């Protein structure tokens, strides 16, 4: 228990209430849930990247497309006419389009037995051409992956502002850049169990999901169920990072079979399935030209970018935000006024792309920061100096792509980050022949963006609001119901802090429940760094409503002027007189005859919140990586990693640090080790953790974090989102540091910066 006076919960590093259950091993994840009579599901998955399904031989207990009950496919991708449709069938129907695509579903008493059934299936597949990457998919004369398409693009867009062509800039730097393909790889793979509830007539789905309400909407539509008969529960979720925020075929199949057979069906994804057929992320290609003045002022960017979105668009919005966001964020934190960038979302015979922490911006940041480094080299100033010259000095600033960078001080963050390093010492080591180097990268992270922003992106689901219900029980205890989801972000703790602050209570007095469509009001879940801003706003509003009612009742009981009543320490005070809240709660619920005249009974408030500014708020930060490179082996060792960041007011600084550090380490994975590789036939080569390497403790330095705090103007308590920022800048910072260590110019153009890549750029 933290000793702390009421009215001090905002900004307190309150230890997380979530910890206790996990430390005792008592967290409950979807894969822990069982039901009597349940069957386990396994999938027979396509062994080839593209082909036409012929004869199928299979034992009893194995279901193919069309045999799992009625399923209606939903349109997916942005809601705009030009975007080509490629709905993802729960089981392949006639054609398979990536290795790992579910073709047959096997049910048995144990997972092992279900896999045995799969082993006995024989499926003839006549091969069709595979497109393992964007160039192959867009090659002239390439076959098309989906019927009726003119070429293998889902769609293209154009971000244009100013007049790049008319700039006539003296410096033009053209570079081709790329980001590797990744898996979000939460430690808990996906898992689900669908259980028909005979009493209520509901199908109850426990699933590892970031957003149960939105998932329910889609599943119900596909299965032809009223939403009132589908309850989706996301219990403890072992990390999401975007990978658990799309409708996937496995849950459709499991629910359909549970309905068809009237039995509980469980599916627990194994790691190979996750790496082979889970949502994938990141793979971007850029061909960009930076236009600049001779003294290194960047003026404009033109060119194209391509996103390898894989074979299908995942509901709701597919990977479209990826390309559009990358294009719109290319200006980064710099005052680049001219933008002329075409972006393409391309279909390949690889697993569908989904969102992953940093969406779009990790690529955009890599691209602009690499170009800035190239510009520094070109005009002969340091990579620090080029940033100092180009950073937007005064906020708010409307970028060329129309985003309003709201509050903060970017140059101050750069100086703060530099101040964390001992650059002269590093220089001395370099002078002594050590291959060490430092690299900088700067990012901005939009969060809390509302209706107009999402609608403008043609999102099929517009997560522009969030609702919270706060209920005071007759004994004075409280429950907050919210539809965001907490899977590591500490929201059970921080939302309680926000309510506690409002009602003058200790956070422990407030239970927080989430992740269950049967409990909470409708809401969108946790993604896009939105939860604290949205659900925090809704929780605060609900607490204000409830607090107002408590004060009214207290004024009546204490015979005091309402304006004098305040809530503090679990009591309502009017001067020296006070009453415990439990008395008020009891009256409002059990003894309503005691209420002031006209006051309706009950102590429950439901509030909806949309941020007052749709454009959202922008966190930002400067990252510095210090690396040592082994020029013989190409190995890159991270010696130091510094972050100077500003996410506005911190509700719980300890949790903010955790979000930043966790994000940074994922970004380090992007930068150095993680890559889903494929061969020319689009066969996956990284299907275990031995091949898909996540960063582990010995490979990392301590991540040092410094906070600048510029409160946002429009959000609750001035907080900004902080979930994704850490993951955006590391590839750019590390690539730059590697070059300095090797005494090279801008030569690292792709991630991950593996030893192989390092050696390949050495002269």
């Amino acid at each position, binding site marked *: 228990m933290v000793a702390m006076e009421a009215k001090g919960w905002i900004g307190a590093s309150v230890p997380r209430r979530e910890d206790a259950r996990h430390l005792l091993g008592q967290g409950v994840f979807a894969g822990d849930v069982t039901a009597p009579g349940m069957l386990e599901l396994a999938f027979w998955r396509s062994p080839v990247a593209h082909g036409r399904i012929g004869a199928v031989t299979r034992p009893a207990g194995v279901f193919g497309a069309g045999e799992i009950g009625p399923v209606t496919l939903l349109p997916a991708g942005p809601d705009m006419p030009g975007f080509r449709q490629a709905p993802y069938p729960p089981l392949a129907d006639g054609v398979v389009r990536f290795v790992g695509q579910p073709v047959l579903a096997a049910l048995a008493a144990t997972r092992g037995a279900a896999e045995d059934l799969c082993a006995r299936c024989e499926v003839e597949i006549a091969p069709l051409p595979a497109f393992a990457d964007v160039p192959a998919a867009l090659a002239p004369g390439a076959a098309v992956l989906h019927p009726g398409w003119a070429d293998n693009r889902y769609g293209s867009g154009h971000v244009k502002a100013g007049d790049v062509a008319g700039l006539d800039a003296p410096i033009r730097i053209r570079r081709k850049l790329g980001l590797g393909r990744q898996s979000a790889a939460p430690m808990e793979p996906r898992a689900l169990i669908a259980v028909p509830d005979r009493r209520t007539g509901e199908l109850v789905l426990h699933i590892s999901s970031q957003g149960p309400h939105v998932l329910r909407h889609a599943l119900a539509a596909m299965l032809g169920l009223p939403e009132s008969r589908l309850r989706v529960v996301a219990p403890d979720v072992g990390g999401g990072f975007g990978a658990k925020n799309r409708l996937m075929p496995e849950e459709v199949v499991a629910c359909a079979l549970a309905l068809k057979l009237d039995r509980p069906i469980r599916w627990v994804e194994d790691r190979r399935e996750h790496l082979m057929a889970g949502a994938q992320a990141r793979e971007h290609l850029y061909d960009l030209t930076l236009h600049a003045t001779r003294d290194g002022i960047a003026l404009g960017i033109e060119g194209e970018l391509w996103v390898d979105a894989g074979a299908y668009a995942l509901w709701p919005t597919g990977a479209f935000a990826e390309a559009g966001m990358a294009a719109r964020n290319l200006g980064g934190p710099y005052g680049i006024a001219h933008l002329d960038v075409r972006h393409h979302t391309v279909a390949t015979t690889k697993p569908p792309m989904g969102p992953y922490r940093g969406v779009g911006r990790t690529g955009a940041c890599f691209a602009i920061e690499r170009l800035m480094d190239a510009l520094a080299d070109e005009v002969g100033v340091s990579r620090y100096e080029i940033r100092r010259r180009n950073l937007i000095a005064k906020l708010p600033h409307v970028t060329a792509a129309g985003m309003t960078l709201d509050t903060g001080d970017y140059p101050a963050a750069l100086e703060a980050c530099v101040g964390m390093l001992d650059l002269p010492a590093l220089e001395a080591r370099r002078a002594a022949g050590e291959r060490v180097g430092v690299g900088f990268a700067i990012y901005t992270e939009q969060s809390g963006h509302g209706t107009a922003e999402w609608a403008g992106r043609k999102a099929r689901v517009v997560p522009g609001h969030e609702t919270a219900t706060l209920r005071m029980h007759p004994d004075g205890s409280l429950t907050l119901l919210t539809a965001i989801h907490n899977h590591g972000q500490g929201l059970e703790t921080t939302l309680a802090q926000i309510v506690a602050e409002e009602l003058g209570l200790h956070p422990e007095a407030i239970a927080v429940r989430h992740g269950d469509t049967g409990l909470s009001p409708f809401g969108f879940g946790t993604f896009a760094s939105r939860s604290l801003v949205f659900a925090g706003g809704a929780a605060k509003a609900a607490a204000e409503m409830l607090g107002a009612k408590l004060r009214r009742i207290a004024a009546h009981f204490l015979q005091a002027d309402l304006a004098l009543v305040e809530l503090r320490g679990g009591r309502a005070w009017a001067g020296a007189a006070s009453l415990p809240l439990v008395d008020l709660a009891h009256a409002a619920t059990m003894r309503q005859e005691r209420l002031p005249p006209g006051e309706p009974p009950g102590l429950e408030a439901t509030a909806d919140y949309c941020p007052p500014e749709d454009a959202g708020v922008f966190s930002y930060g400067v990252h510095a990586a210090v690396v040592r490179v082994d020029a*013989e082996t190409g190995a890159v060792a991270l010696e130091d990693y510094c972050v100077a960041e500003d996410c506005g007011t911190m509700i719980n600084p300890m949790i903010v640090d955790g979000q930043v550090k966790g994000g940074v380490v994922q970004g380090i994975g992007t930068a150095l080790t993680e890559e889903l590789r494929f061969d020319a036939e689009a066969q996956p080569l990284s299907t275990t953790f031995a091949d898909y*390497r996540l960063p582990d403790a010995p490979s990392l330095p301590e991540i040092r974090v410094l906070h600048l705090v510029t409160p946002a103007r429009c959000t609750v308590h001035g907080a900004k989102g902080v979930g994704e920022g850490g993951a955006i800048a590391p590839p750019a910072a590390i690539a730059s540091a590697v070059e300095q260590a090797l005494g090279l110019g801008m030569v690292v153009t792709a991630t991950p910066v593996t030893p192989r890549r390092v050696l390949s750029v050495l002269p």
Partner: protein
Amino acid sequence: MIPAPFTLRRTADWDALPALLEDALPLGGGQSLMPLLALRLAEPAALVPLRDLPGLSEIAERDGALWIGAGVTHARIEDGIGPVPLREWLSLVASGIAYRPVRNLGTLGGSLALHDPASDWPVALLALGASAVLRQGDMRRVLLVEKFCTGAFATALQPGEVIEAVTIPIPATGTRFGWCKLAPAPGAFAEALAGVLHAPGAAPRIAVASPAGARLMPEAPPPDDPHLARLRDVAIRRAGA
């Protein structure tokens, strides 16, 4: 990722072992075999755990050599067995293999028997001039590691035969040993491995990982991949050749 069905046949009787192994695979620590089975890359009808066989975890010094039972785990070696300096050399090699919970079960015999071309023990044992003691029922034969390792994932083991122990000659005073493992991360399988034994008055004995498994230089075939070939040269140099 569940193995195809198999039965586990336990035995503590060396004489019963060959018959039990007719349609079965021996099971050491399972740290390589269980992942292979989970991926259904092998589907044996049965497994026969070796750990109950008498003497399988024995460690002894005899006839100028260190005898290490095939069932001795990497962790036990890491914590120190045998006389100095061999003790330190072996500990160094063992501590670089996988992670402690894996080392607690993975065995010296299992590593050598599998002869994964990226694994540590075959190269280290080859450098140290070790021999494998092979046993079938009560018949034993002893093969130098260079004879035992016939190719990647291939050994001289006959059906029904298992590794009972490894023997390592106690090095002469003044002998030095160098070891270099280049891997993408600590505990990961190597991209290049080299072990070098400098006995006084003798040419250095250099063992490396190669596409054909553990081999002595200079006859070890080079990796096809130029990057790996380059790493191997670095490893040999860093091992102190």
